[in-house]
Every structure is written in structure tokens, then in C-alpha cells.
């Protein structure tokens, strides 16, 4: 996909001016925050489990080489194949090769961010193989030629009227008079249209939430059941997963599952958690005849041992973006690549380079909400600051700092953003926490971090602050 992260500010301006998007984004706040809180409140051990989940991943990362070897040995022992891919391109070629050997013309896909990351769909299409996304949200955006705007709710940027229009446009063999007003009807139609696709596919491609070293299993966690139909019906199942998905044991999976669904959708468990181990066995009436795992590095190993290693604990639950005032205001596409929100702001520069993704860490109000809800206790704000400091230290270009300030001012002067932040209970939006007189020193990077924890003087009104901010943004842009 085209990377538009360097144009983040323009993307954001467009997003703020897009009424359809703004309407749809209301569903993020309504759909996720209260549900998560209720689920968390219902489990007294939640914070202990977060500690445990962090410990599990830290231990796995500290011994990643050994666990990868143990996992690989297990997959092979159960009759599966393991392929190692250093880059996105390597992974694409490996998958294509498997598809070709299977004589595949069509493949079904379970929802997977990793195949978005490697741009698999475009590549397969260009090579004459038709990828069919089967998750409802992914299916919708595939029809629209778009990319996911959220890591667990790919079509969250759309309203039902838009989906209806797309279904009428693409499913033109169905009666134009049919009623598609309600989401129920849309889901029913997608179910009927996609059912034959599972049977027609020669290869099913899924991601993995976990890879288990103890057993050589891949684990997917879903609600719709499409991932399971994708991995059991075709004769070949390909799992594409990055190397940090490894966890040591089944017990560790059980621990992390307890924080995953609660953080993601506020469910206690997602509907389907499936552990797949090797291909179909003698006597089995169903299941794939071949089972392949593509283990992808694509930049992960260079995050190990750096201040960004903690990011590799991420389980892709989406809680950080669900609670992010910047994400609420602009949605996911503005971030310009695969991973949006706070996790994307940290991960994107690591994976595609600071030259392309370096602006994203500035897309933050530093309210700290993301870290407070992250089930894996990833210090997201600290890592965003690290990126900014790195950028400054490298002295590549004095502009990024000014650009960063411009971005900050851009967000700070949007009262809608402020209201969003306030409405989800952030005590002090850090954009408003600069004391009087601090602005003069802001263009210096040291000043940036030094001043950002200073609480806003309570006597000044919102409008006073806004006017000052306006002046500053002009100064910064000058």
C-alpha cells in the first residue's frame, strides 16, 4: 500500500473535515470504552493478569531465539512446514510459492494485520490469484479498495449507508429491491455471498494471535467464525505470523487470553479461540492436508535490545487507539500506513523507517490514556518521546522538531479534540498543560520534554489558552 504517513498533517486535516468519518468515529467511543471498563471491573485479578502477561512476553522475548527453535521443532514434528522470511517481500514470495504449488486460483483470508503489513492481497492479485477477505469488516473494505482503519475493527470508519451502497454496487446479481437498511441484513448478505468462497478456495491464509512453543500450535482469536472456516476448509492452510507472537506454553496463552478480549471488545472471551497443530491426521474427516507457517521478521529483530523492545509485547488488542483522543478525532487512515493510533505511532517508524513514519510520534496529546489501558503495560508515551528525541539527536533535520510543534499546535487548537479528551475522563490534556511563558522555549527539544508535565494554571480560561495557542502555532509554522 502507498505510505502516506509523511503527509500526516494533511491527512488529519482531511479527516477532521470529513462528516461521514466524523459520524462513524463516534462509534469508537460508544462501542469500546464502557464495554472494556465493565469487563475489567468484572475481574478482580485483571491487573495481576496484566503483570503476568507482561512477564510472559518479556521472558519469551528475552529467549526468543530458543523459543523460536523449540516452536519450529514442534511444528515439524506434527507434520507442518516452517518458512522463515526476513522481509515482507520474502514472505510474499513464500506465500505465492505455496499457492502456486497448490495450484491455487482463489484463496480465502482470515483477518490478519500481518498480511496487510506485507501487502499480500495486491501481490497475489497481481500474480493471478484472487484473495477473498472473509471477516465482515475486511470484506467491506476490500470491496471499497481500502485498508483497515483499526486493527480489530477494520471498517470502523464507515457508516451502514456506505456499506449498503457498496453491497448494492458489488452484489449486482441480487434483487435491487431487497431491504439492506439494517446491519443485520448486511451481515446476512455477506454471510450468504461468502459461504461458497470458503469451499472454492484452494488455500486459506490466516494470521496468528499466538504461536505456542510447547505444542507448535498457532492460535487465532475471532468472533465471526470466518477465520476457522478459512483454516479448515481449503486443502492448504498458511499461517503468516511475526516472530514475536511466540509464547512458551498453553498456560501462557490462557493467561494472556484473559486480558486480550477484555481489552479489545470488552468480552470475557472472544467467541472462537482455536489452536491448530499441524495438518489433518490419519482418519480425520476434515482439516487442511498441508499446514505452513511463515515466520516473519520484517524489522522486529532490530527492535530487540533497544528502547523499543517493549513494543514487541503488543497483542494487537486495539485498546490504545480506542482510548486515544487523537484517534477519536481523525480515525486510522490518517496515520498513513497499516498500524494506527498510539501503537502505530511507535511501531510504524520502527518498521518502515523514521524518515517515513517519524511524524507519527508527534500525533499525541501525551494524555497517557493508552498506557493506562494497555493490557501488556507498554509504555507508549515514553516510546513516542524516545522517537522524538532520537530524531532530534540524529540532527537529521532541524525541521522535524518545528514540524512536530506544528502538529501539536494543530491538535491543540481543535476544541473538538479537547472535548473528546475531556469526555473520556482525562484529567489534564497535556496540550493544555504548558504554563505561561513556556512556549518561547518550545522549539528546543529539551524544552519540549521538560515542560510537558507542567500542569496548566487553573485560572486561565479555555479561550485564553486557545488564543495563545493560535499565536504559538503561527510562530511555530513561521
Amino acid at each position, binding site marked *: 500500500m502507498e505510505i502516506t504517513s509523511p503527509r500526516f498533517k494533511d491527512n488529519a486535516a482531511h479527516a477532521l473535515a470529513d462528516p461521514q468519518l466524523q459520524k462513524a468515529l463516534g462509534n469508537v467511543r460508544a462501542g469500546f470504552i464502557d464495554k472494556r471498563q465493565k469487563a475489567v471491573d468484572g475481574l478482580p485479578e485483571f491487573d495481576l493478569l496484566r503483570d503476568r502477561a507482561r512477564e*510472559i512476553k518479556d521472558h519469551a522475548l528475552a529467549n526468543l531465539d530458543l523459543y523460536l527453535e523449540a516452536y519450529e521443532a*514442534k511444528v515439524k514434528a506434527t507434520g507442518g512446514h516452517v518458512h522463515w522470511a526476513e522481509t515482507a517481500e520474502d514472505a510474499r514470495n513464500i506465500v505465492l510459492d505455496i499457492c502456486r504449488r497448490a495450484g491455487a486460483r482463489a484463496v480465502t483470508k482470515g483477518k490478519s494485520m500481518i498480511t496487510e503489513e506485507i501487502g499480500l492481497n495486491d501481490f497475489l492479485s497481481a500474480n493471478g490469484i484472487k484473495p477473498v477477505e472473509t471477516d465482515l469488516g475486511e470484506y467491506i473494505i476490500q470491496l471499497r479498495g481500502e485498508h483497515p482503519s483499526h486493527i480489530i475493527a477494520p471498517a470502523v470508519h464507515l457508516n451502514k449507508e456506505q456499506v449498503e451502497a457498496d453491497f448494492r454496487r458489488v452484489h449486482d446479481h441480487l434483487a435491487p429491491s431487497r431491504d439492506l437498511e439494517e446491519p443485520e441484513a448486511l451481515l446476512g448478505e455477506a454471510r450468504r455471498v461468502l459461504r461458497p468462497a470458503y469451499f472454492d478456495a484452494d488455500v486459506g491464509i490466516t494470521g496468528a494471535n499466538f504461536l505456542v512453543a510447547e505444542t507448535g500450535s498457532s492460535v487465532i482469536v475471532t468472533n465471526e467464525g470466518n477465520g476457522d*472456516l478459512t483454516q479448515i476448509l481449503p486443502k492448504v492452510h498458511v499461517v503468516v505470523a511475526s516472530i514475536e507472537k511466540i509464547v512458551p506454553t498453553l498456560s501462557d496463552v*490462557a493467561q494472556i487470553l484473559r486480558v486480550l478480549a477484555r481489552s479489545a471488545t470488552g468480552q470475557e472471551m472472544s467467541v472462537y479461540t482455536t489452536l491448530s497443530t499441524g495438518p489433518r491426521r490419519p482418519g480425520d474427516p476434515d482439516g487442511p492436508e498441508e499446514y505452513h507457517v511463515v515466520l516473519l521478521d520484517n524489522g522486529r529483530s532490530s527492535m530487540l535490545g533497544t528502547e523499543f523492545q517493549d513494543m514487541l509485547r503488543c497483542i494487537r488488542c486495539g485498546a490504545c487507539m480506542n482510548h486515544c483522543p487523537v484517534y477519536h478525532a481523525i480515525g486510522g487512515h490518517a496515520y498513513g500506513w497499516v498500524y494506527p493510533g498510539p501503537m502505530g505511532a511507535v511501531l510504524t517508524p520502527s518498521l518502515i523507517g523514521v524518515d517515513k513514519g517519524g511524524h507519527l510520534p508527534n500525533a499525541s496529546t501525551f494524555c497517557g490514556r493508552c498506557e493506562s489501558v494497555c493490557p501488556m503495560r507498554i509504555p507508549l508515551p515514553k516510546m513516542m518521546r524516545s522517537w522524538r528525541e532520537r530524531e532530534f539527536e540524529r540532527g537529521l533535520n532541524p525541521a522535524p522538531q518545528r514540524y512536530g510543534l506544528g502538529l501539536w499546535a494543530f491538535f491543540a487548537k481543535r476544541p473538538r479534540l479537547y472535548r473528546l479528551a475531556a469526555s473520556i475522563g482525562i484529567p489534564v490534556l497535556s496540550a493544555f498543560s504548558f504554563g505561561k511563558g513556556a512556549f518561547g522555549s518550545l522549539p528546543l527539544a529539551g524544552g519540549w520534554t521538560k515542560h510537558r508535565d507542567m500542569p496548566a494554571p487553573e485560572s486561565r480560561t479555555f479561550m485564553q489558552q486557545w488564543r495563545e495557542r493560535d499565536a504559538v502555532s503561527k510562530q511555530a509554522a513561521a
Partner: protein
Amino acid sequence: MSARDAILNRVRNALKPGASEAERRRLVDERLTAAPNGVIPARGQLPEQERVALFCTMAQKIAATIERVGKADDVPKAVTQYLRAKNLPASVRMGADGRLAAMPWAKQRSLTVKSGPSDGDDEVGVSHALGGVAETGTVVMESGPANPTTINFLPEHHIVVVDAKDVAGDLEAVLERVRRAYGKGEMPRTLNLISGPSRSGDIEQKIILGAHGPRALHLIVVG
């Protein structure tokens, strides 16, 4: 150098020098062997009767329906009644599970039992669970020659028979049973943890039941 070696070398070189390789190996082996459990929530740690009651409550909370019967022989009748109540054709798809096969299906005269994996045209599938998890109302299904995985996903209605004595307090306890049944480190080809009927929230975050998997999950708890 192969991609495998290149990746593993990069990982090894990046890891902070701390414990020696031998020491790390010992730790990793230990963890893989012991598979320590961690934090087990108190919620499911109950005596059997209350545990089964919690299982039923939690399953209903996530939109599964529940019926409790006294003994395995009562299951076919309960299935027939479910079909009638839902106005479904008197036909079910079923694997060759020994526990199901031992039930008196022939007594349900009007009922057709089709065996083997689902071909996608079945309205109703019947499976037997390996166990249940009280903490979350989850049923655990293993694949095997007698237990087709397709029955868990393709039919519109999925009826799952669970033995009350197989309902554990927590997921870890069921996974431990899998380890005992298959051997440590071994797994059935597919292990499905199923918590309620399939659903999607992908359109405007409104949760709708019946996405690509079954629209209804009906649990028959025996004992």
C-alpha cells in the same frame, strides 16, 4: 546464510547480554516442561454444583442457550424438542463420537441423523465437548476421526453436549486435561474454545449474532 539463521543470529545478537546461553536454555526447558499456571481467577474455583451453575450462567450471558438433562440417554429427546421448538427440520449432522453414538437416537423416530463432516448444507450439528470452562461459559472441542471440526462452524445451529463432570473452573484445568489425554506437548489437530454463537460488530459496532459460524449455540449439560 539461510533466512532462518540470519533471523536467529540477529535475535541472538540483539538480546541483552545477561544470563549465559546455557543458563537461558535451562530456564526455557524448565518453563516448557513445568508450564506454570500463573494467576487463576477465583471466580471459577467452586464446588462442582456451583461450578456447573456458573458455567450455565456465563454461557447464557454470551447468548448461548442451556438445557440440563439428568443422564446421557435423555439427550436425543432434548435434541428433538429443541428442533421442534425452533421449527427446524428433524435432521441433524453428527460425528462418530462414541459418547454420542451410545445414546438412544433410534427412539426419536422422526429424527434423521447424518454422520460425517458437515458439507455446509446442515441446519443443525451435534457435537460432544471435551469439557467446559465455568469462568467464561466456554465449551472446548477437540478434533479427531470421530469429531469433525466443520460441525462446529458450518451448521446454522450448533448443539453441544457437555458432561457436567467435565466442567472445570478455569481454562488451565481443561488444558491440563488435554495434556494428560494427548501427552505433554501434544495436541489434537484442532482445539476449539467456543464461547457463545458467532457474532460480528463490524458495522457501526453493533453486535449481531450469526456471522459466519452458527447463529445459535445450544448447550445440553448432562448430569
